[in-house]
């Protein structure tokens, strides 16, 4: 069940400040604090229904700024832009670590290694390929809808690319049915690229990417700063933030960007470079060239 709640007004307003002596103010502050706690607890207990935003999947730190409520079950979140997949992995991580399962429908080019580096527990990731070409505009994608229906039944997160046939604003009955099934079962659908006929609730877009670490024939990709903007019909206004993704020791760390971070020159440690060159074998001068024009 979902209820429209205005997220901007706090449900419990802070008590008005009183004018009294410092001592009594402190005492009344303590008293207010205790009273507020009791009232809050009471409010939880007598609350008649679960608000939509309480049926959520948790989201890890830097994305928490964008989605303060976490991933609300039954919603469609679309990740777009240059870092769409990295954002999707970052969003999914916490929910999966806490025991959720993710289905990956029709994303055959999924970078498994990248997902593992983001900390996504791969033991709870299942890939389903319906065999239709996602970019082929013909065909209504009924297979895809059937598979998605079965996937939202059993998985907490479903990551998918919407087939080309459904990447428009028309909403066929089958897609509407899929939407209500999603709401009912409480899964979260994450689409890579446009949500199309599914009608995205929240849209995360990478506005800008800056890579650090690559030189002119030197270094290696190491760190990336992405500017992400969140918007959508289930979000009041727009939020945006910069997220830093740092590769370190087989992991990718996510963090917020603080001022001055962006232009630190990257000097890859000698050990990393030596390791990357580890497979250089002594090759014969007469070996054929690896690439010629």
């Amino acid at each position, binding site marked *: 069940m979902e209820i429209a709640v205005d997220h901007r007004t706090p449900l419990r307003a802070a008590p008005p400040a009183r004018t009294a002596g410092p001592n009594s103010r402190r005492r009344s502050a303590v008293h207010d604090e205790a009273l507020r706690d009791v009232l809050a607890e009471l409010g939880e207990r007598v609350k008649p229904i679960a608000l939509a935003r309480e049926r959520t999947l948790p989201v890890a730190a830097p994305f928490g700024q964008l989605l303060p409520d976490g991933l609300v079950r039954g919603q469609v979140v679309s990740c777009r832009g240059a870092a769409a997949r990295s954002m999707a992995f970052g969003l999914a991580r916490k929910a999966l670590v806490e025991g959720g399962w993710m289905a990956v429908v029709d994303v055959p080019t999924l970078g*498994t290694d990248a997902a593992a580096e983001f900390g996504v527990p791969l033991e*709870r990731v299942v890939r389903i390929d319906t065999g239709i070409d996602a970019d082929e505009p013909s065909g209504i994608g009924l297979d895809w809808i059937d598979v998605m229906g079965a996937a939202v039944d059993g998985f907490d997160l479903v990551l998918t690319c919407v087939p080309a046939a459904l990447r428009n604003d028309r909403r066929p009955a089958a897609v509407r049915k899929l939407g209500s099934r999603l709401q009912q079962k409480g899964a979260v659908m994450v689409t890579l690229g446009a949500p199309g006929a599914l009608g995205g609730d929240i849209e995360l877009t990478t506005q800008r990417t800056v890579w650090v670490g690559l030189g002119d024939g030197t270094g*290696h990709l190491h760190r990336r700063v992405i500017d992400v903007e969140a918007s959508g019909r289930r979000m009041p206004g727009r939020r945006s933030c910069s997220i830093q993704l740092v590769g370190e020791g087989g992991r990718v760390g996510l963090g917020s960007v603080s001022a001055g971070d962006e232009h630190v020159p990257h000097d890859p440690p000698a050990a990393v470079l030596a390791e990357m060159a580890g497979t250089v074998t002594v090759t014969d001068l007469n070996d054929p060239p690896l690439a010629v024009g």
Partner: protein
Amino acid sequence: MSRNVPGENRDHPIRMVTVWCPDWPVVAAGCRPDVPAAVLRANRVVARTPAAADEGIVTGQRRRQAQQRCPLIRLLDDDPARDAREFEPIVRAVAEIAPRVDLVEPGWLSIAARGPSRYFGGDAAMAEHLRRSVLDVVASLADVEAGVGAEAEAGVGVGVADGRFAASVAARLGARRREPVVVAPGGSEAFCAPLPIGWLQTLAEVDAELVDLFGRLGLRRLGDLAGLDSVDVLGRFGPVGTHAHRLAAGVDIRPANTTDPAPERRITRVLDDPAAQTDAVVFVAKQLADELAGRLGADGRVCTRLVVRLATEHGERSERSWYRPAGMSAAAMVERVRWQLDAWVNLPRGSEHEITGGVALIRLVPEEVRADDGVQLGFWGGQSDADRRAIRAIARLTTLTSEAAVTVPVWNGGRLPADRYRWMPATLVDLDQRERAVERTATGADGRAGPWPGCLPAPSPATVFDDPLPLDVLDVHGQVVRVSGRGTVTADPAGIRLLLGSEAEGWRRGPMRAVRSWAGPWPVDQHWWEPDRHRRLARFQILVDDEKVGERAHLVIAEHQRWFLLATYD
């Protein structure tokens, strides 16, 4: 009913005879004992022939392990209906000497010992007679199925003891010793005491976790458990522990919370229009089972022994008593009706009680019910609700698409992004113990730096193309950049251009993208000892301009004098 035999004391368990056919599924499948064969359920061996056992196949092994031990092994799919069908002749042979046969599962049945024992002049004589008659049936079954006249080597175990548990253990020991095992009256406790605690799990009385816990607490033999105070056991392990304690002590009476269900519990359906199809009967049975399980469930009870009675319009009857220590759900009841019906329908022509007409009456009688203790879900580890839901969804998705379309990742190892994980069909892997399969360290590798020196450091590309896309890497003069055999480039890359289309139709050139910065080449020369898998290539990371998003990073390789786009960092 045996329980109501005059003079029976509730403190003493009923004397039972158990017949146990080891590895029944392979016998039912008609495998000759001298041919290595095994039956698999959920990719694990559940039964194997003696020949396979000699090769080192054990129950619980995975398909691959079994094939590794014995490459010639014949692997068969599990079919409970077949097992039940083939077991019917044995049930009939046993039913000739005892009125009420309790079927636990195909291959395993028990009867009350008192009457037959008197008739044959003692437990030992009766057990020997039973063993011989069952062996005859098994031999004839092998005769029909495989064309061999030899006496079945598989053996049949017969055990006589006080209580169903002790009798079942005796029967299993009897199958190994190839002679009936008779435990003296009152000797069940002494018989059980030196046995390992794992028997509780083997006989499906207690789940594996509790047995494991007993083991870790130092209770390695049934006698150790029996020696504890029953009050302490109840306090520590709850009703399940008490049940285990009672079995270990050889006091296999029905727990105090089982009661005789009221006669109105039995459910009968008379079909005006006799059903000639198995499915139609099973469909009606499902309605009855749902109703029965629902009614029992409303009282917080569960049925442990169910009598299924079927009758045809011509008056032939089939009645079997089914026992399941863990209690039967509606689905379990329906399964048993189906087994019984299958066995009946497949009776050889001309035999007694052969079915000649449609089924006109179905009756389900709960003979023994007990309070439903419920099943405690695992708190730490074990399967969570989400796991079960997902595993069900995987099964559903597999039927919707195909086995090869539903895949899960397994760590493989390698230097190129596409090699590092393999996607295996979900039906071929153990979904319960997935952590180890995806763990990089499980292969003995110490993280990323383990056995794969030369792989690129994190971050890894999030888009990996199955088939690398051909492209041109050009220098400032528009010439294709070359990489020499020693790993040097002829010029700095200045632009890349994807090649679209196919080689046969001729390449169409994509738009040119300017290179902002690049690094490489990092050469890979792997599997040079194996001509088919030998690869020699150089990797580059290239950052290019992108009008929409600013910049985009790609992983590009040069191999066989051509350039390919392997993956994109997105």
